[in-house]
Protein backbone atom coordinates (compact mmCIF):
# COMPACT_ATOMS: atom_id res chain seq x y z
CA UNK A 1 0.00 0.00 0.00
CA UNK A 2 1.22 3.48 -0.80
CA UNK A 3 1.98 5.46 2.28
CA UNK A 4 0.94 8.73 3.81
CA UNK A 5 3.81 10.71 5.21
CA UNK A 6 3.27 13.17 8.05
CA UNK A 7 5.84 15.86 8.74
CA UNK A 8 5.21 17.32 12.18
CA UNK A 9 8.61 18.89 12.74
CA UNK A 10 10.07 21.94 11.09
CA UNK A 11 12.55 21.51 8.27
CA UNK A 12 13.15 21.49 4.58
CA UNK A 13 12.05 19.18 1.77
CA UNK A 14 14.91 18.95 -0.66
CA UNK A 15 15.63 17.06 -3.82
CA UNK A 16 19.20 15.99 -4.16
CA UNK A 17 19.85 14.09 -7.38
CA UNK A 18 17.10 11.51 -7.51
CA UNK A 19 16.30 11.37 -3.85
CA UNK A 20 13.95 13.44 -1.79
CA UNK A 21 15.15 14.36 1.69
CA UNK A 22 13.51 15.85 4.70
CA UNK A 23 16.11 17.79 6.60
CA UNK A 24 15.60 19.07 10.10
CA UNK A 25 18.07 20.62 12.49
CA UNK A 26 18.87 17.23 13.94
CA UNK A 27 18.61 14.79 11.06
CA UNK A 28 18.46 14.27 7.32
CA UNK A 29 15.99 11.60 6.33
CA UNK A 30 15.58 10.20 2.82
CA UNK A 31 12.05 9.59 1.59
CA UNK A 32 11.10 6.48 -0.33
CA UNK A 33 9.30 8.48 -3.00
CA UNK A 34 8.05 5.47 -4.99
CA UNK A 35 5.91 4.38 -2.08
CA UNK A 36 4.47 7.71 -1.01
CA UNK A 37 0.99 8.71 -2.06
CA UNK A 38 0.58 11.89 -0.04
CA UNK A 39 2.53 14.09 2.33
CA UNK A 40 0.85 15.97 5.17
CA UNK A 41 2.80 18.98 6.34
CA UNK A 42 2.11 20.22 9.87
CA UNK A 43 5.42 21.83 10.71
CA UNK A 44 7.08 24.86 9.23
CA UNK A 45 8.56 23.40 6.08
CA UNK A 46 10.53 25.03 3.27
CA UNK A 47 10.50 23.61 -0.21
CA UNK A 48 11.35 24.86 -3.65
CA UNK A 49 10.11 24.23 -7.20
CA UNK A 50 12.84 21.67 -7.78
CA UNK A 51 11.36 19.58 -4.99
CA UNK A 52 7.79 20.27 -6.10
CA UNK A 53 8.50 19.25 -9.68
CA UNK A 54 10.07 16.05 -8.49
CA UNK A 55 7.17 15.30 -6.15
CA UNK A 56 4.64 15.92 -8.92
CA UNK A 57 6.37 13.46 -11.24
CA UNK A 58 5.22 10.80 -8.83
CA UNK A 59 1.71 12.18 -8.54
CA UNK A 60 2.17 12.85 -4.83
CA UNK A 61 -0.34 15.18 -3.19
CA UNK A 62 0.88 17.65 -0.57
CA UNK A 63 -1.52 18.76 2.14
CA UNK A 64 -0.70 21.78 4.26
CA UNK A 65 -2.02 22.54 7.73
CA UNK A 66 -1.59 25.73 9.70
CA UNK A 67 0.00 26.10 13.10
CA UNK A 68 -3.20 25.02 14.82
CA UNK A 69 -3.53 21.89 12.71
CA UNK A 70 -6.30 23.18 10.47
CA UNK A 71 -6.31 22.34 6.82
CA UNK A 72 -4.80 25.18 4.81
CA UNK A 73 -4.66 23.79 1.28
CA UNK A 74 -3.16 21.22 -1.04
CA UNK A 75 -0.72 20.99 -3.84
CA UNK A 76 -2.21 18.66 -6.44
CA UNK A 77 0.14 17.71 -9.26
CA UNK A 78 -1.18 17.86 -12.81
CA UNK A 79 -3.84 15.19 -12.97
CA UNK A 80 -3.11 12.19 -15.13
CA UNK A 81 -6.45 10.47 -15.20
CA UNK A 82 -8.94 12.95 -16.52
CA UNK A 83 -12.19 11.92 -18.13
CA UNK A 84 -14.25 14.73 -19.62
CA UNK A 85 -17.10 12.30 -19.90
CA UNK A 86 -17.21 11.59 -16.17
CA UNK A 87 -16.99 15.29 -15.27
CA UNK A 88 -19.83 16.25 -17.61
CA UNK A 89 -22.05 13.56 -16.18
CA UNK A 90 -21.08 14.43 -12.62
CA UNK A 91 -22.18 18.01 -13.33
CA UNK A 92 -25.48 16.76 -14.74
CA UNK A 93 -26.20 15.08 -11.43
CA UNK A 94 -25.59 18.37 -9.69
CA UNK A 95 -27.85 20.38 -12.02
CA UNK A 96 -30.79 18.00 -11.80
CA UNK A 97 -32.63 18.75 -8.56
CA UNK A 98 -33.86 15.20 -7.97
CA UNK A 99 -30.55 13.62 -8.85
CA UNK A 100 -28.66 15.99 -6.58
CA UNK A 101 -31.02 15.38 -3.68
CA UNK A 102 -30.66 11.64 -4.09
CA UNK A 103 -26.88 11.78 -3.69
CA UNK A 104 -27.03 14.29 -0.84
CA UNK A 105 -29.51 12.02 0.93
CA UNK A 106 -27.19 9.04 0.45
CA UNK A 107 -24.30 10.84 2.15
CA UNK A 108 -26.44 11.84 5.12
CA UNK A 109 -28.00 8.39 5.37
CA UNK A 110 -24.60 6.76 5.61
CA UNK A 111 -23.33 9.36 8.09
CA UNK A 112 -26.36 8.84 10.35
CA UNK A 113 -26.00 5.08 10.03
CA UNK A 114 -22.41 5.30 11.24
CA UNK A 115 -23.31 7.67 14.08
CA UNK A 116 -25.91 5.18 15.29
CA UNK A 117 -23.39 2.40 14.88
CA UNK A 118 -21.01 4.24 17.20
CA UNK A 119 -23.65 4.55 19.90
CA UNK A 120 -25.18 1.12 19.59
CA UNK A 121 -22.58 -0.61 21.73
CA UNK A 122 -22.74 2.00 24.49
CA UNK A 123 -25.38 1.34 27.11
CA UNK A 124 -24.83 4.82 28.59
CA UNK A 125 -25.89 6.46 25.36
CA UNK A 126 -29.02 4.44 24.76
CA UNK A 127 -31.41 7.36 25.24
CA UNK A 128 -29.49 9.38 22.66
CA UNK A 129 -29.50 6.53 20.20
CA UNK A 130 -33.26 6.27 20.55
CA UNK A 131 -33.59 10.03 20.06
CA UNK A 132 -31.55 9.87 16.85
CA UNK A 133 -33.52 6.91 15.53
CA UNK A 134 -36.68 8.82 16.27
CA UNK A 135 -35.52 12.03 14.60
CA UNK A 136 -34.20 10.20 11.55
CA UNK A 137 -37.19 7.89 11.29
CA UNK A 138 -39.63 10.78 11.28
CA UNK A 139 -37.57 13.25 9.29
CA UNK A 140 -36.15 11.19 6.48
CA UNK A 141 -39.37 10.88 4.56
CA UNK A 142 -40.19 14.58 4.65
CA UNK A 143 -37.28 16.00 2.78
CA UNK A 144 -37.92 17.96 -0.37
CA UNK A 145 -34.76 20.00 -0.65
CA UNK A 146 -31.14 20.19 0.43
CA UNK A 147 -31.80 22.80 3.14
CA UNK A 148 -34.28 20.51 4.89
CA UNK A 149 -31.85 17.64 4.65
CA UNK A 150 -29.09 19.78 6.14
CA UNK A 151 -31.43 20.82 8.95
CA UNK A 152 -32.26 17.24 9.78
CA UNK A 153 -28.63 16.28 9.69
CA UNK A 154 -27.79 19.18 12.00
CA UNK A 155 -30.39 18.14 14.56
CA UNK A 156 -29.13 14.57 14.54
CA UNK A 157 -25.53 15.63 14.86
CA UNK A 158 -26.46 17.76 17.88
CA UNK A 159 -27.98 14.82 19.68
CA UNK A 160 -25.03 12.69 18.67
CA UNK A 161 -22.45 15.10 20.05
CA UNK A 162 -24.46 15.55 23.26
CA UNK A 163 -24.21 11.82 23.84
CA UNK A 164 -20.41 11.99 23.98
CA UNK A 165 -20.67 13.30 27.55
CA UNK A 166 -22.09 9.94 28.59
CA UNK A 167 -19.07 7.87 27.74
CA UNK A 168 -16.04 10.13 27.41
CA UNK A 169 -13.86 11.21 30.37
CA UNK A 170 -15.15 14.24 32.27
CA UNK A 171 -12.22 16.39 31.21
CA UNK A 172 -13.58 16.22 27.72
CA UNK A 173 -17.10 17.36 28.30
CA UNK A 174 -18.82 18.86 25.30
CA UNK A 175 -21.27 21.67 25.75
CA UNK A 176 -21.78 22.22 22.10
CA UNK A 177 -19.95 21.73 18.87
CA UNK A 178 -17.87 24.75 18.00
CA UNK A 179 -15.89 24.88 14.84
CA UNK A 180 -14.17 28.19 14.34
CA UNK A 181 -12.45 28.39 16.66
CA UNK A 182 -12.78 25.34 18.87
CA UNK A 183 -12.64 26.54 22.44
CA UNK A 184 -12.31 23.28 24.30
CA UNK A 185 -10.34 20.05 23.89
CA UNK A 186 -13.10 17.84 22.50
CA UNK A 187 -13.99 20.36 19.82
CA UNK A 188 -10.32 20.76 19.00
CA UNK A 189 -10.01 16.99 18.53
CA UNK A 190 -13.05 16.80 16.27
CA UNK A 191 -11.82 19.71 14.17
CA UNK A 192 -8.36 18.24 13.83
CA UNK A 193 -9.72 14.82 12.89
CA UNK A 194 -12.10 16.31 10.36
CA UNK A 195 -9.24 18.23 8.74
CA UNK A 196 -7.35 14.98 8.36
CA UNK A 197 -10.24 13.01 6.90
CA UNK A 198 -11.01 15.86 4.51
CA UNK A 199 -7.52 15.88 3.04
CA UNK A 200 -7.29 12.10 2.91
CA UNK A 201 -10.57 11.96 1.04
CA UNK A 202 -9.29 14.58 -1.38
CA UNK A 203 -6.24 12.42 -2.02
CA UNK A 204 -8.46 9.48 -2.90
CA UNK A 205 -10.70 11.58 -5.15
CA UNK A 206 -7.57 12.86 -6.86
CA UNK A 207 -6.63 9.29 -7.82
CA UNK A 208 -9.91 8.89 -9.68
CA UNK A 209 -11.64 10.74 -12.51
CA UNK A 210 -14.05 12.55 -10.20
CA UNK A 211 -13.98 16.33 -10.10
CA UNK A 212 -13.49 17.34 -6.45
CA UNK A 213 -15.22 20.71 -6.96
CA UNK A 214 -18.65 19.37 -7.96
CA UNK A 215 -20.54 18.37 -4.83
CA UNK A 216 -24.08 17.51 -3.87
CA UNK A 217 -24.78 17.84 -0.17
CA UNK A 218 -22.52 20.84 0.25
CA UNK A 219 -22.68 23.71 -2.18
CA UNK A 220 -19.83 23.64 -4.67
CA UNK A 221 -19.13 27.22 -3.73
CA UNK A 222 -18.69 26.38 -0.06
CA UNK A 223 -15.12 25.21 -0.25
CA UNK A 224 -12.75 24.63 -3.08
CA UNK A 225 -13.02 20.84 -2.96
CA UNK A 226 -16.49 20.36 -1.62
CA UNK A 227 -16.95 16.83 -2.95
CA UNK A 228 -14.37 15.93 -0.35
CA UNK A 229 -16.69 17.37 2.31
CA UNK A 230 -19.56 15.26 0.98
CA UNK A 231 -17.67 11.99 1.04
CA UNK A 232 -16.04 12.86 4.37
CA UNK A 233 -19.49 12.87 6.00
CA UNK A 234 -19.55 9.09 5.62
CA UNK A 235 -16.14 8.63 7.20
CA UNK A 236 -16.20 11.19 9.99
CA UNK A 237 -18.16 8.99 12.42
CA UNK A 238 -16.60 5.81 11.06
CA UNK A 239 -12.97 6.88 11.33
CA UNK A 240 -12.48 10.20 13.16
CA UNK A 241 -14.92 9.66 16.00
CA UNK A 242 -13.80 6.12 16.74
CA UNK A 243 -10.20 7.31 16.87
CA UNK A 244 -11.20 10.03 19.36
CA UNK A 245 -13.14 7.58 21.54
CA UNK A 246 -10.21 5.21 21.66
CA UNK A 247 -7.60 7.88 22.45
CA UNK A 248 -9.68 9.42 25.22
CA UNK A 249 -11.00 6.27 26.81
CA UNK A 250 -7.54 4.73 26.88
CA UNK A 251 -6.21 7.99 28.31
CA UNK A 252 -3.65 8.24 25.51
CA UNK A 253 -4.59 11.86 25.07
CA UNK A 254 -5.16 14.05 28.09
CA UNK A 255 -5.45 17.74 28.84
CA UNK A 256 -1.69 18.14 28.83
CA UNK A 257 -1.74 17.59 25.06
CA UNK A 258 -3.59 20.84 24.42
CA UNK A 259 -2.54 24.42 24.26
CA UNK A 260 -4.95 27.20 24.90
CA UNK A 261 -4.77 30.85 24.16
CA UNK A 262 -7.50 33.46 24.12
CA UNK A 263 -10.57 31.28 23.72
CA UNK A 264 -8.74 29.04 21.37
CA UNK A 265 -7.86 25.43 22.00
CA UNK A 266 -5.70 23.18 19.89
CA UNK A 267 -3.56 20.06 20.04
CA UNK A 268 0.11 20.63 20.75
CA UNK A 269 2.80 18.88 18.75
CA UNK A 270 2.90 15.83 21.00
CA UNK A 271 -0.89 15.59 20.88
CA UNK A 272 -0.93 15.85 17.10
CA UNK A 273 1.63 13.06 16.87
CA UNK A 274 -0.41 10.73 19.04
CA UNK A 275 -3.58 11.51 17.12
CA UNK A 276 -1.96 11.07 13.71
CA UNK A 277 -0.45 7.75 14.72
CA UNK A 278 -3.79 6.33 15.80
CA UNK A 279 -5.57 7.87 12.81
CA UNK A 280 -3.08 6.37 10.38
CA UNK A 281 -3.29 2.94 11.94
CA UNK A 282 -7.07 3.14 11.67
CA UNK A 283 -6.79 4.01 7.97
CA UNK A 284 -4.60 0.97 7.44
CA UNK A 285 -6.83 -1.40 9.36
CA UNK A 286 -8.44 -3.83 6.97
CA UNK A 287 -11.82 -5.48 6.79
CA UNK A 288 -12.83 -8.40 4.63
CA UNK A 289 -14.93 -7.06 1.79
CA UNK A 290 -17.85 -9.33 1.04
CA UNK A 291 -18.13 -8.79 -2.70
CA UNK A 292 -14.46 -8.38 -3.44
CA UNK A 293 -13.49 -11.21 -1.15
CA UNK A 294 -10.39 -9.21 -0.38
CA UNK A 295 -9.16 -7.27 2.59
CA UNK A 296 -9.86 -3.59 2.16
CA UNK A 297 -8.40 -0.88 4.40
CA UNK A 298 -10.45 2.03 5.70
CA UNK A 299 -8.54 4.15 3.23
CA UNK A 300 -9.50 1.67 0.52
CA UNK A 301 -13.15 2.10 1.45
CA UNK A 302 -12.84 5.83 0.74
CA UNK A 303 -11.55 4.96 -2.72
CA UNK A 304 -14.35 2.46 -3.26
CA UNK A 305 -16.90 5.22 -2.49
CA UNK A 306 -15.32 7.25 -5.30
CA UNK A 307 -15.60 4.29 -7.66
CA UNK A 308 -19.26 3.83 -6.76
CA UNK A 309 -19.92 7.48 -7.54
CA UNK A 310 -18.28 7.17 -10.96
CA UNK A 311 -20.41 4.10 -11.68
CA UNK A 312 -23.46 6.08 -10.65
CA UNK A 313 -22.58 8.99 -12.93
CA UNK A 314 -21.94 6.86 -16.01
CA UNK A 315 -25.23 5.06 -15.56
CA UNK A 316 -23.66 1.76 -14.65
CA UNK A 317 -24.89 1.19 -11.12
CA UNK A 318 -27.05 3.23 -8.77
CA UNK A 319 -25.02 4.60 -5.87
CA UNK A 320 -25.52 2.94 -2.55
CA UNK A 321 -23.40 4.50 0.21
CA UNK A 322 -21.21 2.48 2.55
CA UNK A 323 -22.88 1.12 5.66
CA UNK A 324 -20.26 -0.63 7.72
CA UNK A 325 -21.42 -4.21 8.17
CA UNK A 326 -18.66 -5.40 10.48
Amino acid at each position, binding site marked *: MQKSLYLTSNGRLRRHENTLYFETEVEKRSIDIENVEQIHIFGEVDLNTKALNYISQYGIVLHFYNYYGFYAGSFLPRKKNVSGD*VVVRQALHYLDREKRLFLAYCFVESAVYHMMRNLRERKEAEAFLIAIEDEWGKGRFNISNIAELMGLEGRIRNIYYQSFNQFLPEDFAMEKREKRPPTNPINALISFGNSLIYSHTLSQIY*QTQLDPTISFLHEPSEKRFSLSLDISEIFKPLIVDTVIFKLLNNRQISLEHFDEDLNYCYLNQEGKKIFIKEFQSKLETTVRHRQLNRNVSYK*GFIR*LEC*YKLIKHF*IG*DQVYSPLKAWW
Partner: protein
Amino acid sequence: MEDIQEFSEVKFQGIKINYLYICKRKLWLFSKNITFESTSDKVLLGKVLHEYSYPKENTKEVLIDNLVMIDILSDGSIREVKYSSKMKEADIMQVVYYLYYLKQKGIQKQGIINYPKEKRKEVLELTPEYKEKVKQALKEIEEITTKPIPPPAQKQKICKSCAYFEFCWG
Protein backbone atom coordinates in the same frame (compact mmCIF):
# COMPACT_ATOMS: atom_id res chain seq x y z
CA MET B 1 -8.93 1.81 -52.15
CA GLU B 2 -12.14 0.77 -50.51
CA ASP B 3 -10.08 -0.51 -47.61
CA ILE B 4 -8.34 2.77 -47.09
CA GLN B 5 -11.52 4.79 -47.06
CA GLU B 6 -13.17 2.54 -44.53
CA PHE B 7 -10.04 2.54 -42.49
CA SER B 8 -9.68 6.27 -42.21
CA GLU B 9 -13.04 6.44 -40.53
CA VAL B 10 -12.30 3.96 -37.83
CA LYS B 11 -8.86 4.13 -36.38
CA PHE B 12 -8.12 3.07 -32.87
CA GLN B 13 -5.28 2.58 -30.52
CA GLY B 14 -4.01 -0.98 -30.66
CA ILE B 15 -4.75 -1.52 -27.01
CA LYS B 16 -8.46 -1.19 -27.77
CA ILE B 17 -8.32 -4.23 -30.03
CA ASN B 18 -6.60 -6.05 -27.20
CA TYR B 19 -9.27 -5.01 -24.71
CA LEU B 20 -12.07 -6.00 -27.11
CA TYR B 21 -10.92 -9.58 -26.75
CA ILE B 22 -10.29 -9.38 -23.02
CA CYS B 23 -13.26 -7.45 -21.69
CA LYS B 24 -15.75 -5.24 -23.49
CA ARG B 25 -16.50 -3.29 -20.32
CA LYS B 26 -12.83 -2.47 -19.90
CA LEU B 27 -12.82 -1.29 -23.50
CA TRP B 28 -15.76 1.03 -22.89
CA LEU B 29 -14.28 2.47 -19.69
CA PHE B 30 -10.88 2.89 -21.30
CA SER B 31 -12.46 4.72 -24.24
CA LYS B 32 -13.91 7.26 -21.77
CA ASN B 33 -10.54 7.65 -20.11
CA ILE B 34 -11.77 5.94 -16.98
CA THR B 35 -8.53 4.18 -16.22
CA PHE B 36 -6.99 2.75 -13.09
CA GLU B 37 -3.78 1.37 -14.53
CA SER B 38 -1.69 3.88 -12.61
CA THR B 39 -2.43 2.20 -9.29
CA SER B 40 -2.00 -1.39 -10.43
CA ASP B 41 1.07 -3.43 -9.53
CA LYS B 42 0.48 -5.75 -12.48
CA VAL B 43 0.61 -2.82 -14.87
CA LEU B 44 3.81 -1.62 -13.23
CA LEU B 45 5.33 -5.08 -13.78
CA GLY B 46 4.43 -4.90 -17.46
CA LYS B 47 5.99 -1.46 -17.75
CA VAL B 48 9.22 -2.59 -16.13
CA LEU B 49 9.33 -5.60 -18.45
CA HIS B 50 8.99 -3.32 -21.48
CA GLU B 51 11.75 -1.10 -20.21
CA TYR B 52 14.28 -3.79 -19.40
CA SER B 53 13.77 -6.38 -22.11
CA TYR B 54 15.74 -6.17 -25.31
CA PRO B 55 18.12 -3.43 -24.20
CA LYS B 56 20.09 -3.67 -27.43
CA GLU B 57 17.16 -2.64 -29.62
CA ASN B 58 17.26 1.06 -30.26
CA THR B 59 13.93 1.57 -32.00
CA LYS B 60 11.68 0.98 -29.02
CA GLU B 61 8.25 2.43 -28.36
CA VAL B 62 7.70 3.97 -31.76
CA LEU B 63 4.50 5.98 -31.96
CA ILE B 64 2.90 6.12 -35.40
CA ASP B 65 0.33 8.80 -36.30
CA ASN B 66 0.05 9.64 -32.61
CA LEU B 67 -2.07 6.53 -32.33
CA VAL B 68 -0.31 3.23 -32.70
CA MET B 69 2.57 2.39 -30.38
CA ILE B 70 4.92 -0.27 -31.70
CA ASP B 71 7.10 -1.82 -29.00
CA ILE B 72 10.06 -2.68 -31.21
CA LEU B 73 10.45 -1.79 -34.88
CA SER B 74 13.06 -3.41 -37.11
CA ASP B 75 13.62 -3.88 -40.83
CA GLY B 76 11.49 -6.89 -41.39
CA SER B 77 9.23 -6.96 -38.39
CA ILE B 78 7.31 -5.24 -35.65
CA ARG B 79 7.47 -6.76 -32.19
CA GLU B 80 5.10 -6.60 -29.29
CA VAL B 81 6.32 -7.55 -25.82
CA LYS B 82 3.84 -9.13 -23.44
CA TYR B 83 4.11 -10.26 -19.86
CA SER B 84 2.29 -13.54 -20.24
CA SER B 85 0.62 -15.51 -22.97
CA LYS B 86 -2.59 -15.94 -21.02
CA MET B 87 -4.44 -13.61 -23.39
CA LYS B 88 -2.89 -14.91 -26.56
CA GLU B 89 -5.84 -14.27 -28.83
CA ALA B 90 -6.04 -10.64 -27.75
CA ASP B 91 -2.29 -10.23 -28.27
CA ILE B 92 -2.47 -11.75 -31.73
CA MET B 93 -5.31 -9.47 -32.77
CA GLN B 94 -3.44 -6.43 -31.51
CA VAL B 95 -0.40 -7.29 -33.60
CA VAL B 96 -2.31 -8.20 -36.75
CA TYR B 97 -4.11 -4.89 -36.38
CA TYR B 98 -0.72 -3.16 -36.42
CA LEU B 99 0.20 -5.14 -39.55
CA TYR B 100 -3.10 -4.13 -41.12
CA TYR B 101 -2.56 -0.52 -40.13
CA LEU B 102 0.94 -0.42 -41.59
CA LYS B 103 -0.23 -2.10 -44.76
CA GLN B 104 -2.66 0.76 -45.35
CA LYS B 105 0.36 3.00 -45.32
CA GLY B 106 2.15 0.78 -47.80
CA ILE B 107 4.43 -0.88 -45.30
CA GLN B 108 4.63 -4.64 -45.17
CA LYS B 109 6.12 -6.38 -42.18
CA GLN B 110 6.01 -9.51 -40.14
CA GLY B 111 4.60 -9.47 -36.64
CA ILE B 112 6.26 -11.03 -33.62
CA ILE B 113 4.91 -11.34 -30.12
CA ASN B 114 7.58 -11.87 -27.48
CA TYR B 115 6.83 -13.40 -24.13
CA PRO B 116 10.27 -12.92 -22.59
CA LYS B 117 9.34 -14.35 -19.22
CA GLU B 118 8.17 -17.54 -20.86
CA LYS B 119 10.98 -17.47 -23.44
CA ARG B 120 8.40 -17.90 -26.18
CA LYS B 121 7.49 -16.07 -29.30
CA GLU B 122 4.67 -16.02 -31.83
CA VAL B 123 5.27 -15.11 -35.47
CA LEU B 124 2.38 -13.67 -37.46
CA GLU B 125 1.51 -12.71 -41.01
CA LEU B 126 -1.46 -10.65 -42.11
CA THR B 127 -3.54 -13.36 -43.78
CA PRO B 128 -6.86 -12.59 -45.51
CA GLU B 129 -8.66 -14.22 -42.55
CA TYR B 130 -6.92 -11.98 -40.07
CA LYS B 131 -7.70 -9.00 -42.27
CA GLU B 132 -11.39 -9.81 -42.14
CA LYS B 133 -11.21 -10.35 -38.41
CA VAL B 134 -9.55 -6.99 -37.87
CA LYS B 135 -12.19 -5.19 -39.91
CA GLN B 136 -14.88 -6.90 -37.91
CA ALA B 137 -13.16 -5.98 -34.66
CA LEU B 138 -12.88 -2.31 -35.60
CA LYS B 139 -16.61 -2.20 -36.26
CA GLU B 140 -17.31 -3.82 -32.93
CA ILE B 141 -15.10 -1.36 -31.07
CA GLU B 142 -16.97 1.50 -32.72
CA GLU B 143 -20.28 0.01 -31.61
CA ILE B 144 -19.24 -0.61 -28.01
CA THR B 145 -17.50 2.68 -27.39
CA THR B 146 -20.36 4.79 -28.71
CA LYS B 147 -22.89 3.24 -26.34
CA PRO B 148 -24.03 5.66 -23.60
CA ILE B 149 -23.51 3.22 -20.75
CA PRO B 150 -20.85 0.57 -20.20
CA PRO B 151 -21.52 -3.11 -20.73
CA PRO B 152 -22.33 -4.67 -17.32
CA ALA B 153 -19.56 -6.36 -15.40
CA GLN B 154 -19.24 -10.06 -15.98
CA LYS B 155 -17.12 -12.15 -13.71
CA GLN B 156 -14.25 -13.84 -15.47
CA LYS B 157 -11.18 -15.60 -14.16
CA ILE B 158 -8.97 -12.69 -15.17
CA CYS B 159 -11.04 -10.15 -13.21
CA LYS B 160 -9.02 -10.68 -10.09
CA SER B 161 -5.78 -9.57 -11.70
CA CYS B 162 -7.34 -6.63 -13.52
CA ALA B 163 -6.67 -3.00 -12.56
CA TYR B 164 -10.43 -2.45 -12.70
CA PHE B 165 -11.31 -5.25 -10.27
CA GLU B 166 -12.16 -2.99 -7.35
CA PHE B 167 -13.98 -0.59 -9.61
CA CYS B 168 -16.21 -3.26 -11.14
CA TRP B 169 -16.88 -5.34 -8.06
CA GLY B 170 -16.46 -3.03 -5.08
